[in-house]
């Protein structure tokens, strides 16, 4: 099954500028692995050395933060949209 993954501005260099990519996977963990396979370098931006999603990056399935679902084990269904939302601080 393929889901659409929204790529935030700071990471678009790794997707050749694409703001949305279609990735195969049945849960969030698989999506992260397949994102890395398609766009090397993405995983280390999203996950720490233990493979856990970094605390200043939030991964959403539709409008829910996966930390409050099943984390990387969150099961995806057809039509779900995955969004990567990193902390940003600019205001000036």
């Amino acid at each position, binding site marked *: 099954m393929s889901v659409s993954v929204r790529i*935030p*501005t*700071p*990471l*678009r*260099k790794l997707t050749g500028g694409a*703001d949305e990519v279609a990735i195969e996977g049945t849960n969030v963990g698989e999506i992260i692995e397949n994102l890395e396979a398609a766009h090397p370098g993405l995983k280390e*931006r999203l996950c720490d050395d233990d493979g856990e999603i*970094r*605390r*200043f990056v*939030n991964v*959403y399935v539709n*409008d*829910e*933060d996966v*930390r*409050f679902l099943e984390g990387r084990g969150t099961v995806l269904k057809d039509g779900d949209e995955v*969004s990567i*939302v*990193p*902390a*940003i*601080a*600019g*205001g*000036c």
Partner: protein
Amino acid sequence: MIDFTEEQIERYSRHIILPEVGAEGQSKLLESKVFMIGAGGLGSPVAYYLAAAGVGTIGIADADVVDSSNLQRQIIHNQDRIGMPKVESARETMQALNPDVKVNTYNYFITEDNVREIIRDYDLIIDGCDNFPTRFLVNDACYFEKKPLISGAMFRFEGQVATFKPHQEKGAPCYRCLYPEPPPAGLVPSCSEAGILGALAGAVGTIQAVEAIKELLGIGESLAGRLMVFDALRMEWKKLKLHKDPACPLCGENPTITDLVTYEQACELKFGQ
């Protein structure tokens, strides 16, 4: 309720005519006190619209002076103000727009030594600063002083807006529920070198101003518990859910942060490079 002058009735007539605002709401705005961190890209539209709305007292903190590279987006300043402290320039612009507004200027950095005392005098805090350490400091100070916080941030073509008032609403998160601590140095872009589409500051800042006025009036649905994310390139707003984290180090069940902490400034761009 305050006694309006005729000039005020005319000035605020488009507010007063709104049933959700009315004379009572306008009076509330005139008696409100808002403190803003930053007189820059986000601070400009926020300060402008709050002054126009007749928010009676506006405090604004910024240690910088106006630079010509600011004028691509910081519309509260202008060419003649280059070199002037931003808070002074902001005060002049706000008072030229609306002499009803009292502007308190804080021409220095917000630190753990001054932030709690400063915000204590205000009803609502608006963060439009440009770095993570200040964002965490302001969040924590607002939590300890029980002040609602409207936080805005932007990067290149993206913006984020959220309201934090964990002290007011059960289940409402704070900034640390979203991000427990600042990213390590070099992992997330945080500085202006990244570039910013000037008008984006207007889009994000005016959302903060709208939300601030709603909070002051107590009307509509608060943004607390949601994160608005704007993508200018797709011209798309998303509303994501934010949850109170029971493990939050500040507002969670077993808090480990019981006083203000100061983080080092992290100012590199590796996250996207």
